């Protein structure tokens, strides 16, 4: 059972209180983009074995979306942060690097 902290209301709760929302920081592509870009946006996921940035919603709490950094190979949650950002905060990256020295943040 994952334990997550909602950065919006500050409550720490078990995963049953949250709803997972898939990979975070996806770049949107609309109707005028190429087929490859559109396919990438809709379907091609990083799906890494290791550090993963993802969206969650505090479904049975404040109802807000937020983002989390989690390891898919160990289920360790590194931290959560606000959804209103295009990339993970620097201090979180630093924290993950300290725990997973071989990990490189991808663009």
């Amino acid at each position: 059972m994952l334990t997550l902290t909602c950065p919006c209301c500050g409550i720490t709760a078990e995963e049953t209180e949250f709803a997972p929302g898939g990979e975070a920081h996806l770049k949107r592509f609309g109707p005028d983009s190429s087929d490859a870009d559109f396919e990438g946006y809709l379907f091609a996921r990083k799906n890494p074995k290791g550090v993963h940035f993802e969206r969650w919603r505090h479904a049975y709490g404040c109802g807000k979306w937020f983002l989390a950094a989690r390891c898919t190979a160990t289920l360790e949650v590194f931290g959560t942060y606000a959804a209103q950002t295009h990339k993970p905060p620097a201090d979180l990256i630093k924290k993950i690097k300290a725990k997973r020295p071989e990990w490189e943040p991808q663009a």
Partner: protein
Amino acid sequence: MKRYSIFAVAREALRYHAGWERAWRSPEPKKRYKVVVIGAGGHGLATAYYLGKVHGITDVAVIEKGWLGGGNTGRNTTIIRSNYLQDPSAAIYEKARSLYEGLSRDLNYNVMFSPRGLLMLGQTEHEVRGYQRTVHANRLQGIATEWIGPERVKELVPILNIDGPRYPVLGALYQARGGTARHDAVAWGYARACSSMGMDIIQQCEVTGISQNAGKVTGITTSKGEIGCENLAIVVAGHSSVLAEMGGFRLPIESVALQAWVSEPIKPCMDVVVMANTVHGYMSQSDKGEMVIGGGTDGFNNYTQRGSWHHVEETTRALVETFPIISRLKMLRQWGGIVDMTGDRSPILSKTPVEGIFVNCGWGTGGFKSIPGSGFAMAELIARGHSPLAAEFNLNRFKEGRFIDESVAAGVAH
């Protein structure tokens, strides 16, 4: 390979069973193979088997990171059915089901295929309409399924409570020739047959890299050294994205945990497989008497082969209303596997952007039932460059929007 037969049993009985040989060899890898299959689960071994049996290609190695059949092949609920809505799915799953019927004889290995019949309960009006539509589709596809009323359901499964206040049983989609098989035996039987054709099954050998030259695959790097190959088949289910990254391309796959669990063994009480998709639980009784129960997947990416506890609780709780008999059963053990989910919940059997690399993945929650059909189609794709069964399941469908949408057809959250 010595054949298994009643004479072999009698012969060995007379000499203290000292003459049984190992079912498959465990050789060191050669420098080069015509085809290397990554993943010695059911799908990988079946691919190798049909490459040899149908296409005469026996210069094949099957590489396995862990032990043979230790991934999802050993972690499922062994249900076999082909009652799919979409034509391409119905074709490949029906091919698999029909191959299962003759598999024990074909492999000279008892896979304990038990065509005990399979029910998919209609517990809401919406579900009833959906399954009746599937029955009509199956009729056009030449697959024997029928819609049966609640009385017939009760007759087939006396332990079922058809008058549940919340989820009454309004009828069921019945596939009389669906059933179960012994999951380990399927992997072991294919492995033994592959080995006897001269193929190398290499266990405890992790692939760490894929080498290419001018857009064409040349070999793989493994924990047991470099292995060259002309063609490479990636058949690794939950780890498909990891292997694809080594190959330099990306797949429309997300890996999530799917769990199953069994109760303590009880006397025979249910001789069909029952799926209740409204509450998303399914149950059958194993030959040992355990009630084998499966539910839905977790919603988040996961490679740990263990899922969230609350799914076990939710599914069991939901099934108790329909099967009051299980309310006081103790659950014996629980396990999880990592399934590879695609956007349309249909598999991918396809060439890739790298020449010579083929992928067979995306079977998601329905991999076991499709093993023989998947291997048959994959072998044809590798050997001939085209397979009618696999044609619709290519990677381009995501770019072109030609989905084989079984997620909607199944009406469950998967």
